[in-house]
C-alpha cells in the first residue's frame, strides 16, 4: 500500500520500544524487586515508579529529538522517501559502487566526453565541408590561373612572333 514515511516509522518504532520496555518493567515487577520498601510505603512506591516511567520516556524521546535535530534526520529521511518513491518502478537491483574508483568514474565522465566527441564531430564535419568548398575554389582558381597563363603565353608568343617579323622586315629594310 502507501509507503509510510521513514520519520513516522522511526517514531512508531521508538514508541513501540518504549511501550514494550515499560510493559516489561511493570509496576508488579518493580514492587517485586523493591518488596520491603513497597510494604512500608506503597503510595510512595507508586509515585516513584510513575516518575521512573515518565522520566525514562521523556529522556529517550528527548534523545531521539536531539539525534533528529543534530543529523537533520527528518529532512534526510524525507529526501530518502522521495528518492525511493521516484525509483520504485525499477525492480532489479540498482548499480552499486564497484570498489574500483577508476571503473566507477567512467560513467561519471562519460556524458562530458560524449558531449566533447559530438562537438568535435560537428566541428570536423563543418570544417570538412568548408574545406571542400575551399578546395573547389582552389581548383577553380588553378584553372583560372592556367587560363590566364595560357592567355599571357599566347599574347607573349604573338608579340615574339611580331618582334621576329619586325626584325626580319627591318633587316630587309636595311639591305642596301
Amino acid at each position, binding site marked *: 500500500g502507501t509507503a509510510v514515511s521513514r520519520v513516522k516509522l522511526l517514531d512508531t518504532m521508538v514508541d513501540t520500544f518504549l511501550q514494550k520496555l515499560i510493559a516489561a518493567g511493570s509496576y508488579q515487577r518493580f514492587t517485586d524487586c523493591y518488596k520491603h520498601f513497597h510494604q512500608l510505603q506503597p503510595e510512595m512506591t507508586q509515585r516513584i515508579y510513575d516518575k521512573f516511567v515518565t522520566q525514562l520516556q521523556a529522556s529517550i524521546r528527548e534523545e531521539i529529538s536531539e539525534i533528529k535535530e543534530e543529523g537533520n534526520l527528518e529532512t534526510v529521511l524525507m529526501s530518502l522517501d522521495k528518492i525511493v518513491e521516484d525509483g520504485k518502478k525499477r525492480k532489479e537491483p540498482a548499480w552499486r*559502487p564497484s570498489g574500483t*574508483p577508476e571503473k*566507477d*568514474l567512467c560513467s*561519471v565522465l562519460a556524458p562530458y566526453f560524449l558531449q566533447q566527441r559530438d*562537438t568535435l564531430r560537428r566541428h570536423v564535419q563543418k570544417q570538412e565541408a568548408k574545406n571542400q568548398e575551399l578546395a573547389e575554389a582552389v581548383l577553380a582558381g588553378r584553372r583560372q590561373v592556367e587560363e590566364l597563363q595560357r592567355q599571357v603565353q599566347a599574347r607573349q608568343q604573338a608579340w615574339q612572333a611580331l618582334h621576329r617579323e619586325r626584325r626580319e622586315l627591318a633587316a630587309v629594310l636595311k639591305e642596301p
Partner: protein
Amino acid sequence: FDEIIVDIATKRKQYPRKILECVIKTLKAQHE
C-alpha cells in the same frame, strides 16, 4: 573501521564531482 567506511563513502560522494570539475576545465581548455 567505521571511520574508514564514512571516509570512503564521503569520497565516493564528493570526489566524482570534483574530478568532473577538473575534467570539464581541461576539456574546455583543450577546446579553446
